[in-house]
């Protein structure tokens, strides 16, 4: 089943009189359960593409479908609704709310999705165990290591059982062991829960975890391969 489909999407940014085309006609389809990497150098359009799929931004032209819905023309609140239950995010910076504990950070999307207290407690406990952080539940982000923070972010992204998780350079700020642990956690949860993961990266150690790799350069897709082909190529 198709989780997201992108049809001939362009995205142009205006900075004063200067126009920059971040995406120049991208088309793409991602199926449920995929574990896909978007790769390419800085400025190739990876983050812009993730933001469009994630309903954080709107394309200049073309269409973006999420779970069959054209999200290109949705207003701010409709896009927020779409994100809330359908899409989870993991960011390069450890995007946790600093005043909330690990538990409360994971609980936040559940609150927004209207889960009751006992459902929230059950789900957060389950997720904390899934990312091996049950003993860190009451720690605030500044009391957690970078790797632990990113695992909390993974648990938060998974909390409302989304169809799709988008990760933008999830290991960029982590050392190798922590990066490895984060990627292994994502891989395991993809296999256990079947949730689709799409992550942007330019780190070869991360790319090796992907089962499909889409390469962008200058705002266009230049390669779109299954993992085996890449592995052979590497």
């Amino acid at each position, binding site marked *: 089943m198709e989780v997201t489909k992108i049809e001939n999407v362009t995205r142009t940014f205006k900075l004063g009189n200067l126009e920059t085309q971040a995406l120049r006609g991208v088309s793409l389809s991602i199926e449920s359960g995929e574990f896909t990497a978007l790769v390419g150098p800085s400025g190739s359009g990876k983050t812009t593409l993730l933001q469009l799929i994630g309903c954080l*931004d709107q394309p200049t032209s073309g269409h973006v479908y999420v779970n069959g819905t054209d999200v290109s023309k949705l207003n701010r609140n409709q896009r927020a609704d779409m994100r809330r239950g359908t899409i989870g*995010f993991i960011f390069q*910076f450890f*995007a946790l709310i600093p005043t909330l504990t690990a538990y409360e950070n994971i609980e936040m999307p559940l609150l*927004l999705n209207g889960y009751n207290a006992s459902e929230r407690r059950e789900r957060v406990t389950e997720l904390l165990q899934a990312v091996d952080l049950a003993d860190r539940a009451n720690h605030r982000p500044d009391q957690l290591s970078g790797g632990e923070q990113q695992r909390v972010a993974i648990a938060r992204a998974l909390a409302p059982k989304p169809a799709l998780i988008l990760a933008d350079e999830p290991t960029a700020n982590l050392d190798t062991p922590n990066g490895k642990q984060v990627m292994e956690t994502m891989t395991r949860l993809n296999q256990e829960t079947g949730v689709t993961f799409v992550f942007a990266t330019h780190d070869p150690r991360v790319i090796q975890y992907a089962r499909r790799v889409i390469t962008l350069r200058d705002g266009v897709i230049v390669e779109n391969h299954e993992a085996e082909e890449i592995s052979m190529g590497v």
Partner: protein
Amino acid sequence: MIQLFKMALRDLGRNRRRSFFSSLALAIGLALLLLMASFINGEMSGAMDATIRLQSGHLQVRAESYDMNKTSLKWEDLVANPDQVAAQVATLAPVKAASPRLFASGIISVGDESAGVRVFGIDPASEANAPYRDGLISGDFLIPSDRQGVLIGEPLAKKLDLKPGDQINISVNTSNGDVDEQLFFVRGIYTTETSGFDKSTIFMPLAKAQTITQTENHASTIFVLLKDTQQTGAVASALRSSNYKVLTWMQMNEVIVQFEDLANSYMVIFYLIILGITATVIINTLIMAVFERTREIGILSAIGMKSRRILAMFLAESTLLAVGGIIMGLILGLLVTAYFERYGFHIGDYGTTADLLIGNTIYAKLRMDDTVNLSVLALIVTLLAGLYPAVLASRMEPVDALRAGQ
């Protein structure tokens, strides 16, 4: 909702000092408003009280043609047989005291010094004149049979360097338009703590005043004090007759009512200025918070928080700042006003007109309705101030917000 306030509280706790000082700004603003309101109240109720007690009474019974401004002494403008009229008025149950008074214009002179005064002929035994008797600071009070004694106010005594026993000349107008001058002795010096009254008013027994002004058995007015101010209308109706006019304290003191309205209008402007300054501090604090937390706003938006909830989150913060500030402001304001309610604020000789008697010391008087209204006003202004930063936060595009700080 609880979660919202929990988050808001923690967010404010990130920069406790800044949050505290923002709330403190509101607290000081509110305390100042309470103090100002209590001063205006104290001043106005004090002025009304002093005017009723010393000058107008609750009611006055006068001849139909009497004009207070002209201080007429013609017999036809005066109340004849005033003792009888006063006795009749005093039979009404709500009346505390009814006493005849004769007013005349005069000049007091000692050596080369002289001063214009209002001469009050009073019945020294009447309870209506207790404020003057109680305010005696040296010498003796008048007795009805005294033919040469006068009572003068402290500021006048100081100005003319007089003490009890000193001789003075007093010239007064008479009923036929002449001026009569006689020698008197200062019997006593009084103060009502109202310089505007004390420096221009001297007292002599009614009988003597009638003699010198040639207004035999006449008085300018019957001065009436009631047990309860609320009874004024009822007593005035009961006293109305075709021979006399009855004036209530409200009719006689219109200038005070007008002054109070004017003062209240000015106060609204002061309130808005003070709350405007306070609101600026709150806006500044919250705008700083919005800019510092732009990326977090992006994260919350990314995980599906709607604009409305982001708005509510920042409004919850301004509500907490407001509630904290109002609680501190009430404590501070009540303490300060309690001090001035007890010890007052000395303003000296302020009430200089005969129509408006303001005491030398204003005692703050905080009313419950002012306290509630000003607290609610402070809350509303703070919430309105918080609206702009909250709207700013709620309108951020998530993609732009996430980019911030990267």
